[in-house]
């Protein structure tokens, strides 16, 4: 189960990502625990598996419209499906990697994998409960989903 202080690490990582990479702060909503089933996801979802002293998954999920604006802010001119996939993977990787500042090097992160396409669903994580950190940036909403044991 994830502790409050640990959630704070991910909230800070998300805040920092948007401030620095997108040069525009995001507003982070109150994190909540998913009590039933798996949380819903947007068009693109970057997924990082966690192993080592903790086990679990970190997802960053966002709609295509938000990713397009984020790419523009990064001065990207390629808005292809592959670039969207690359971006959600990179955001998930950056926030998860930054969490090692508090979790330490035994918080081992995988390379990103990506879910996209029609009605994507995140896989069940038996024995783990997912926390959702809502992200509002400009007029768009995204989520960071953290499931750790």
């Amino acid at each position: 189960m994830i502790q409050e202080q640990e959630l704070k690490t991910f909230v800070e990582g998300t805040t920092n990502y948007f401030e620095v990479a997108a040069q525009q702060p995001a507003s982070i909503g109150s994190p909540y625990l998913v009590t039933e089933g798996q949380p819903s996801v947007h068009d693109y979802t970057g997924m990082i598996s966690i192993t080592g002293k903790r086990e679990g998954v970190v997802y960053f999920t966002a709609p295509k419209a938000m990713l397009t604006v984020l790419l523009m802010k990064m001065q990207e001119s390629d808005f292809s499906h592959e670039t969207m996939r690359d971006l959600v993977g990179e955001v998930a990787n950056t926030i998860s990697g930054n969490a090692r500042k508090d979790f330490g090097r035994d918080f081992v992160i995988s390379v990103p994998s990506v879910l996209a396409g029609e009605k994507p669903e995140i896989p069940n994580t038996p024995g783990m409960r997912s926390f959702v950190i809502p992200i509002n940036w400009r007029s768009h909403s995204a989520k960071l989903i953290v499931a750790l044991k």
Partner: protein
Amino acid sequence: MNAVNGNATNGARRSYKLMIVDDSNIMRRRIERSQQFEEIQLVGTASNGLEAIELFKKMDPDVITMDLTMPQMDGIECIENIVRIKPAVRILVISALADKATAVEAMEKGANGFLNKPFTDRQLNEAIAELIR
């Protein structure tokens, strides 16, 4: 893996051949676009450690930006291999991994600088300046 043709020498000023290693295409383009040194010329990009070693042998870069979390061969192993071939190479690690132990390990293996993702253009250019001056 992409090699870029070109001559990195330009008269009196010392010039540097740059190789960018990162599994994210967005990051590779970002680093290429953001670095502002006239004396640096991009000679190639690679998306994992194995590709990087192959490209390194072909293009003999002087300066490398190196991601750490990559498929096939990670950045730490890649640094070790490259430094063994050319001890004078200058390597800037650009990684999301924010724990001190990882930065220390990268430096012990032969990296010369460490920049955490996400970064601003200014932070990138300051880190590169430290590397070449």
